[in-house]
């Protein structure tokens, strides 16, 4: 029997560790290696191609699960991973295990998400309305610099459907490149090359100047669009200065092609200003797993990221997570902090 995790496009960019969609297979492989460290898993990863072919072939879900028999046929499938059900499935298909290992008994060596190399919180985040990712193709040059800052493009429903609405442009530093903005030079600027007939509120923009010499906050813009013909792409060119460490600073000019088509692989951003967890709502949703009705969650009642970090979240060390403690989980998720280690702004 073999187990594989399939590393796919991010379901929720910007959530936890400020991770953004990789642009190359090398970057996606780096994601998979980091996932290995953060999860402490011994199950091997396989990594989807950048055209997301396996995700598309198997139903385009963020966390789907399949059991394949020795002849290569799909014998079980579900839209959401369900370990307890997989155990039952395998008992039916293969037989009962000799030993039974429980989640709470596994001591995984987990590493925290990648840390930003410079402070965050120096520039207020743009509070954007509910939007969806649209297709964006980076123009990658063979010998070009990495995309230290990666563009995320979103559009509201009216813009996607009718060509009239709001467009979000967010330039997010990729933590895998360990770069920070060089605020000692000109701020980030972008220019749009609009097709005939397109009417945008503006075709260029410049980020606000930041007093701090460096930071890692995204540079974000909202643009009103009066008309964007669906079959005509927009070219975007961005110029920015980023440094890796203290000495390797680069002025970078990079380009993208934007299309007014929903990107089914773009994921839904979760960050300050975009889909942040509301702590009370998160606690209420989590407590739906409270099987014994005591108003708290035990280790046997939690799943996902809460489980390996359970002891860190259990502030009063009673072996249970109450609503207030679960609300802190949400705040941690929203601000990418390692549990118990809040970011402190540099003086």
């Amino acid at each position: 029997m073999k187990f594989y995790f399939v590393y796919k496009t991010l379901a929720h960019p910007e959530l936890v560790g400020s991770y953004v969609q990789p642009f190359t297979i090398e970057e996606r492989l780096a994601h998979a290696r980091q996932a290995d460290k953060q999860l402490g898993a011994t199950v091997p990863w396989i990594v989807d191609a950048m055209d997301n072919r396996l995700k598309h072939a198997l139903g385009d879900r963020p966390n789907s699960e399949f059991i394949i028999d020795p002849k290569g046929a799909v014998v079980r499938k579900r839209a959401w991973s369900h370990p307890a059900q997989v155990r039952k499935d395998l008992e039916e298909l293969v037989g009962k295990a000799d030993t039974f290992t429980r989640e709470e008994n596994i001591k995984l060596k987990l590493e925290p998400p990648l840390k930003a190399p410079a402070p965050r919180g120096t520039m207020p985040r743009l509070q954007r309305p509910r939007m969806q990712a649209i297709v964006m193709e980076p123009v990658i040059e063979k010998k070009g610099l990495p995309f230290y800052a990666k563009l995320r493009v979103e559009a509201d429903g009216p813009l996607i459907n009718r060509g009239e609405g709001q467009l979000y442009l967010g330039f997010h530093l990729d933590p895998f490149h360990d770069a920070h903005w060089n605020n000692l030079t000109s701020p980030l600027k972008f220019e749009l090359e609009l097709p005939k007939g397109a009417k945008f509120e503006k075709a260029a923009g410049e980020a606000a100047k930041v007093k701090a010499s460096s930071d890692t906050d995204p540079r974000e813009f909202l643009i009103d669009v009066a008309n964007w013909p669906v079959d005509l792409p927009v070219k975007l060119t961005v110029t920015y200065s980023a440094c890796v460490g203290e000495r390797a600073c680069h002025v970078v000019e990079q380009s993208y092609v934007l299309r007014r088509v929903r990107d089914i692989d773009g994921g839904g951003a979760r960050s300050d200003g975009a889909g942040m967890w509301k702590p009370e709502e998160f606690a209420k949703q989590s407590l739906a797993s409270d099987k014994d009705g005591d108003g708290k969650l035990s280790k046997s009642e939690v799943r996902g990221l809460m489980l390996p970090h359970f002891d860190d979240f259990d502030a009063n060390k009673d072996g249970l997570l109450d609503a207030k403690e679960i609300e802190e989980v949400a705040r941690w998720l929203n601000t990418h902090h390692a549990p118990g280690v809040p970011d402190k702004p540099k003086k």
Partner: protein
Amino acid sequence: MRSLARFGLGLILAAILGGPALAQREKKDEDFSKEKPAIGEKLPKVSIFDAAGKEFKTADLRGHYTVLTFGCLT
């Protein structure tokens, strides 16, 4: 039946990746069960990558049961 002991560990790791509290359901499971590949159909033949960046063919998943779970960092 050592292999079954391993699948116990695999299930736990899948739980960590799963995290339904952190994800929203977009379609119902009933819709998913009707989509391709259907139960009994062969896994589509796709060439992707292993963790080292080498080619990995789903067509090579033969001769044993395989559990595939999709996931990502966020």
